[in-house]
């Protein structure tokens, strides 16, 4: 479904030198897979997600989605091709309501009941939120859950989530795990989640460990997770 071929991404640092954030990454993600990308902060995880959804364009390499080269495709075209993205820090607006965002995500005007369904799925009491502005009045946890509700409304083949656990309380977190599991089981969709959370890694089919812009480990959960759980100090992937 998604294939990254030798993808690299460079930026200019403060001294105008080239700095490689992603180094020659190759990765294949099959249909109906749940992939967790983990690794130390600053390792390039968010950058990789943004390369997949088109916010950044690779310096070199290719990105193939369902057989189509999307390396130079715009964010909009990738979204239309079937890629969704949940931001680590969801964006706030002035004057755009929760129901507007869900309608954009669905690509049509939903009935209030249909829009509410997606909010209920992520544990929000829909009638309290549907007419709220997506602005600074929403708490971090509320806006994160609305972000995930927009993914459900989009219902695309591939969803990329950047640290969905950040800012979410424990109770909501358990429910979100169920949402992710349901997304995969009922909808037969592929999910890429960037996460540090053991409970998210634990429901993944495959774990990819990213460090210094490179994949340092990759494989089925059962092989990678025990190594990660030996503790950060002793974990070879985090050193």
């Amino acid at each position: 479904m998604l294939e990254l071929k030798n993808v690299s991404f460079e930026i200019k640092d403060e001294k105008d030198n080239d700095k490689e954030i992603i180094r020659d990454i190759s990765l294949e993600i099959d249909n109906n897979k749940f992939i967790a990308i983990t690794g130390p902060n600053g390792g390039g995880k968010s950058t990789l997600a943004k390369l997949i959804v088109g916010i950044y364009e690779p310096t070199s390499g290719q990105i193939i989605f369902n057989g189509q080269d999307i390396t130079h495709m715009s964010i909009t075209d990738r979204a239309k091709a079937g890629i969704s993205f949940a931001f680590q820090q969801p964006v706030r607006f002035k004057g755009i309501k929760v129901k507007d965002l869900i309608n954009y995500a669905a690509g049509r005007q939903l009935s209030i009941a249909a829009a509410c369904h997606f909010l209920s799925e992520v544990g929000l009491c829909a009638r309290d939120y549907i007419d709220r502005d997506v602005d600074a009045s929403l708490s971090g946890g509320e806006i994160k859950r609305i972000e995930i509700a927009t993914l459900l409304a989009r219902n695309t083949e591939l969803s990329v989530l950047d640290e969905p656990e950040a800012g979410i309380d424990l109770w909501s977190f358990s429910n979100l795990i169920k949402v992710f599991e349901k997304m995969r089981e009922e909808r037969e969709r592929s999910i890429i989640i960037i996460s540090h959370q053991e409970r998210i890694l634990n429901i993944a089919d495959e774990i990819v460990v990213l460090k210094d812009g490179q994949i340092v480990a990759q494989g089925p959960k059962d092989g990678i997770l025990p190594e990660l759980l030996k503790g950060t100090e002793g974990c070879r992937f985090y050193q």
Partner: protein
Amino acid sequence: MDKIQRDLLKTIADIHEVPEGAYNIRANGATDSRATTENINIVSKEDKPGIDIIIKAGTKNESVHIPVIISETGLKDLVYNDFYIGDDADVVIVAGCGIHNCGTELSQHDGIHTFHVGKNARVKYIEKHYGENDEDATGENVMNPTTIVYVEEGGYMEMETTQIKGIDSTVRDTKAYIQGEGAKLVVRDKLMTHGRQHADAIFDVEMNGFESTCDLISRAVARDDSTQTFKANIIGNAKCSSHTECDAIIMDNAKISASPEIVANDLDAALIHEAAIGRIAGEQLIKLMTLGLSQEAAEQEIIAGFLK
């Protein structure tokens, strides 16, 4: 009334046929039609162009529509409209002006509105300004509204003022005197300029009443080569509270200047001003694009929401 005039009326005052309740429709510089009710009287001024709108004390749930439409090119219209809202009344006043310019000459409407809001009276005032030109008609459309407001004890005045399209030059001048104890003024001003349009928005508010309040939010968008200035001067002369917010988006080559001023002449005056000008946040565009909107559609939605 012809189709152009009827369309203008619909745009600025959401009127299809004859409005309910009291109304005065002014077309091309003269009264077109008028209706009064038992509680709301409308009288033409003797000494200058314009009308007095007299609302009896205790009038509840009634509305007054006083739209102005201009469909002749080169017409310059000046009116003085004075509103006397009796104590304890609760009314909606819908004003607004629409210009359809079919020629090359400048069409202009200057409306000077003065409101006297009585004790414990509530007024919601809705004003829309709109201009349009025939294809190839280059005549400028100018509107200079002046609004003067006096709010007495316990009175409440809410102004929803909008200018979204088609006005080449405007000076929007609002002066408010919040006189009585517990009196309140709420302003929601929305402004968008295009092309080479210019707009000045000026708000001078004097808060003289004990525990009077003012809540003024201005949202502005300047596109193309248009320019805007925003000036707000809020003076607290008593124990009072006020919140002013000037929030603006600039696009293309547009320019906006905002000069907020707050003056506290009383130890218990609590005055806040927030001002922000900037382009559409890149992350807002990206977010909507990840939902499948094109960049242009995302911009449109963000602007429409901002000015909603």
